[in-house]
């Protein structure tokens, strides 16, 4: 059963698409690989955007893990009325255009929004703050984590946990010692996908959080703004995002292959 299509034929037909997928990034990195870019990295706009991106994505990733893991476990282990509907609703942000996501969030937490209006009455403002940046990232990225973890829980049979419980482990201990270790690859995958998606978030953020250096202007928003003012800074930030994403993907490949 070792018969496969000839690699020559495969490369030949796939070459165009492969080039299309690889060349743009190479063009960006080639253009960015100049000494002038080193100094652009220390431009205040760049450092502020970098700091903001790192802090907001760290918070959104932590919140995703803390709240997403129970959701994934619930969806994997329990059957209930309306589950199909709930699953579709939880996946919706993944297929929604980011701009629509931002508009929806703005109509929820904006000054006259569904929640925003009562919150404003007690002096809490969410839109145009770093909190809004985190909300946008959570909205568009956390479903990726939920999907990964749900699949992992589904593929670890419940009977393993049940067996541990019959051996006098508490249910929590059984979950922690039996199921959780088996989900590590999915956990890493979920975190990488969620974090990179949050790091690259643009459309929802610019609508619900606006763009203000140091407060809501994350790396992608700063790239967009600097394109028209300081191309070197935009290139430097683009290179940072590209290299970070690539390093994470490589790392992720390593981790899952080791399994």
């Amino acid at each position, binding site marked *: 059963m070792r018969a496969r299509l000839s690699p020559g034929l495969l490369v030949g037909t796939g070459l165009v698409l492969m080039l299309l997928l690889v060349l743009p990034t190479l063009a960006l990195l080639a253009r960015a690989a100049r000494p002038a870019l080193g100094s652009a990295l220390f431009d205040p706009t760049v450092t502020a955007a970098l700091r903001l991106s790192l802090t907001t994505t760290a918070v959104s990733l932590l919140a995703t893990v803390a709240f997403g893991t129970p959701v994934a476990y619930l969806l994997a282990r329990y059957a209930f009325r309306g589950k199909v509907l709930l699953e579709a609703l939880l996946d919706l942000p993944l297929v929604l255009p980011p701009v629509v996501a931002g508009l929806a969030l703005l109509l929820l937490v904006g*000054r006259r929004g569904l929640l925003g209006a009562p919150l404003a009455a007690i002096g809490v403002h969410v839109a145009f703050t770093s909190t809004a940046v985190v909300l946008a990232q959570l909205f568009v990225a956390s479903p990726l984590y939920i999907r990964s973890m749900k699949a992992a829980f589904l593929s670890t049979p419940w009977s393993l946990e049940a067996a541990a419980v019959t051996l006098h482990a508490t249910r929590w201990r059984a979950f922690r010692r039996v199921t959780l270790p088996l989900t590590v690859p999915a956990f890493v995958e979920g975190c990488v996908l969620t974090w990179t998606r949050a790091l690259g978030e643009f459309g929802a953020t610019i609508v619900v959080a*606006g763009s*203000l250096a140091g407060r809501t202007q994350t790396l992608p928003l700063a790239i967009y703004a600097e394109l*028209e003012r300081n191309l070197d800074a935009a290139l430097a930030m683009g290179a940072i995002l590209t290299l970070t994403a690539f390093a994470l993907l490589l790392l992720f490949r390593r981790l899952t292959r080791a399994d």
Partner: protein
Amino acid sequence: MTRFLRWAQTTLLAATLAFATAQTVTVFAASSLTDAFTALAHGFEAANPGARVALDFAASSTLATQILQGAPADVFASANLLQMQRVTQAGLEAGPPSTFAGNRLVVVVPSDSDLLTFEQLARPGLLLVLAAPQVPAGHYADEMLAAAAGVYGAAFVAKVRRNVVSREPNVRQTAAKVALGAADAAIVYATDAHGLSNVRTVAIPASLQPTIRYPLVTLRGSAHPAAARAFRAYVLSSVGLAALAGYGFTPPP
């Protein structure tokens, strides 16, 4: 017979398409010109049967960047001289730019807002939105606030600046933040308030108004230079200028 008809139809369609593309003028225009240039394009098409205008609206700064990167525009209408200069300094113009309109800055607020005067922009906790600094509307707003420091004092301007929660990618999105009820006030052009419901304007004192100029240029490397020149002439004609005035633009300063 049906086969012949189908063939004739296809040929006709192809011919129309070829003619249409041959006559299409691509116009890159500042966001604030969205309504006025849409109307001007219709007027131009009506006056020149067979001609088509393809419009692309964005911040002038975005459009200038795209033109510098080789975007195939035939005409560029900018909301300030600075973004026009980026294009002309690169030598991309086919002729000298002509200023065709002026404008004023205003504050837009939700129609039920209790903000009545320009001075109230300094009110603590107000959510104020401006266009990004490189965008003409944002540049003009910064210029206006610099002038305000001379009249109302630097402390006043510092308070106003503290209220700025976002610098938006173009002037229409800046105004939209107020129309959506997400922001309390935005500094935009008087013409942007024209088409918006649920908002009203608060005047900005005449002494603070920057000189707002809209220059227009035909671009070198245009595939349809004659059509591009015809569109330019149409905008600068009395019909074109009257249409612009109808949308609230002032005569060129």
